[in-house]
């Protein structure tokens, strides 16, 4: 048995016998300004992040045309809107997933392993298409957390990601480049 656990915990407990000065308490004012119109806000934020929005079945068909190899998750919404894929996450041009929710405040998409096709499907393909409904938009990160807690508290997915725009880097001279490792394009289809 490795004694490190007991040693570290004993050192922590000994250290904490000396009291540290407690900082002044924060006020109870909200941390972020309230989000008044979630759908409008989501659209603005998502577009500002260089995300691509699709409205309507016609536009979706047009978008899908150039993609030959499509990988999909097996959520009901994706099956209804796209049907079955013909490729896997490792060899597709387009990965299609559902989502747990969309966050208006930050223009984000929340995906998880149990609800949206595992870990690789939303990060490995060069383009990621998210099939979502308008009523999946929540105002802010705190409400997204509350929704996840309610949905999963008894058993959590092994991984979740809050996706905020396409993959990016600014490591070279702070110049913004898309598609560092994850999808170069992030697309959301907003159905009703």
């Amino acid at each position, binding site marked *: 048995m490795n004694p490190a656990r007991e040693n570290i915990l004993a050192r*922590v*407990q000994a250290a*904490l016998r000396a009291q*540290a000065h407690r900082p002044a308490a924060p006020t109870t004012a909200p941390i972020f300004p309230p989000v008044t119109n979630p759908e409008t806000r989501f659209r603005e934020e998502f577009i500002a992040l260089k995300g691509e929005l699709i409205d309507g079945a016609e536009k979706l068909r047009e978008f899908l045309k150039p993609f030959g190899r499509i990988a999909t998750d097996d959520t009901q919404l994706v099956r209804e809107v796209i049907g079955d894929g013909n490729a896997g996450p490792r060899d597709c041009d387009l990965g299609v997933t559902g989502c747990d929710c969309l966050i208006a405040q930050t223009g*984000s998409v929340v995906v998880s*392993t149990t609800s949206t096709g*595992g870990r690789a499907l939303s990060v490995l393909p060069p383009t990621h298409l998210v099939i979502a409904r308008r009523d999946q938009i929540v105002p802010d990160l705190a409400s997204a957390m509350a929704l996840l807690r309610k949905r999963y508290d008894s058993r959590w997915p092994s991984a979740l990601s*809050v996706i905020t725009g396409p993959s990016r*880097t600014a490591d070279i*001279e702070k110049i913004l480049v898309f598609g560092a490792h994850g999808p170069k394009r992030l697309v959301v289809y907003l159905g009703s």
Partner: protein
Amino acid sequence: MNTATATALRFKRAAAAKATDLQHRAVIQKAIATYDAAVARGKTRFADWQNARSHAAAIKWETINHLDRYLEQFERNVLANGGHVFWAETAEDARQHILALARRHGVQKVVKSKSMTTEEIHLNEALETAGIKTIETDLGEYICQIRGEPPYHIVTPVMHLTKADIAQTFHEKLGTPLTDNAEELTMIARARLRHEFMTADMGITGANFAIADTGMIALTENEGNARLSFSLPRIHVAVVGIEKLIPRLEDLALLWPLLSTSGTGQALTAYSSLIGGPRQPGETDGPQEFHVVLLDNGRTRLLADAEQRDALHCIRCGACLNACPIYKNVGGYTYATTYQGPIGSVITPHLRDAHQWSHLSYASSLCGACTDACPVRIDLHHHLLHNRRNSVQRRFDQPIQRLMFRAWLWAMQSPGRYTVGGKLARLAIRLGWAKSLAQPWTEGRELPEPPEQSFHEWWKQTR
């Protein structure tokens, strides 16, 4: 007798060289100006940035001051999710554990996503020495790795390099054509690393936060390399300093935007991920095993110093580095530490040898810009003063310094002695003696013209 350590002398030489390197200065100023503008915009998304800082400070205070409880809760929940937890007292313990794990699973290739904690324990060298190919996948870290250099900055590893430098490195080490296009350089790295992700056996990440009430780790990144590192290989290892704990998942509704804003000015980075174990039944992919290495490596020593305990609140956003006039002038490599800038100068004497690294607390003008910038309200510049006091009490200062301060104290305690001292000092400047007496301070500086009379004398005549 105490003398300046070799490390301190090395710092002085490196600082003197960098401070006069105008190209270095131009590159750093440009990067930090871009950062400053983005952060100023980012802060406007908060209702009240100062109150957000207070909230964050309260969350971290609660965690760090009940750390035993939260560590045990975190461990319980990781185990319940099917993960493993290893407690490492030292860097060596952590390295040996990860090496043994890699050997047991026949690991030949490791992909790593950016983690300062793994830099701290020099994990790459240990893996490479054991014959395990280890690849950094964050673009900045990848560039550092192929150049054979450590990260220059905890958030922006190659802040000091230009496109031309990086193109030259890729040309020399990878044989790619020279280009001055940042996108082309990024795509070179993407193509090469894609293959490594597909064939790696183990993914190693750090953790930005460890969440006690769900047993998850949280990772903040922009590129997607962390997501690929914890999605594709069959084993995921997360190296987590014990100070990374937070009580509740909901705390991230503040801490994620706070870290993103202070780190890069983004409202949220592209990917904020939560990992709560290996692949679960019913999931289509993911690693078979999830291992958390909880690292002490000197952190409990810092915890025992109640005065500076809040230095463990640090979320490694890099804001204090970018705010620090010393960092901007001497650059990241001069520190020769894993954690550079003000936070590094505060914690390194605690995490490593207090005497060897005591000089770092003097690498500060005590202007307080770091304290103002800190999103979790660490009292950084006062801690630099506390470290100075501690090193004097432990007699790490030099005898000549002690003698001079004693003389100064003696002179300051009597108006007569002070007046005589002032007269002598003005005379010394006038006769040109002061320049040599105050060496090496006067090497790069001009002494002021001495006034004809002291303020004291002038006041007597004028009032």
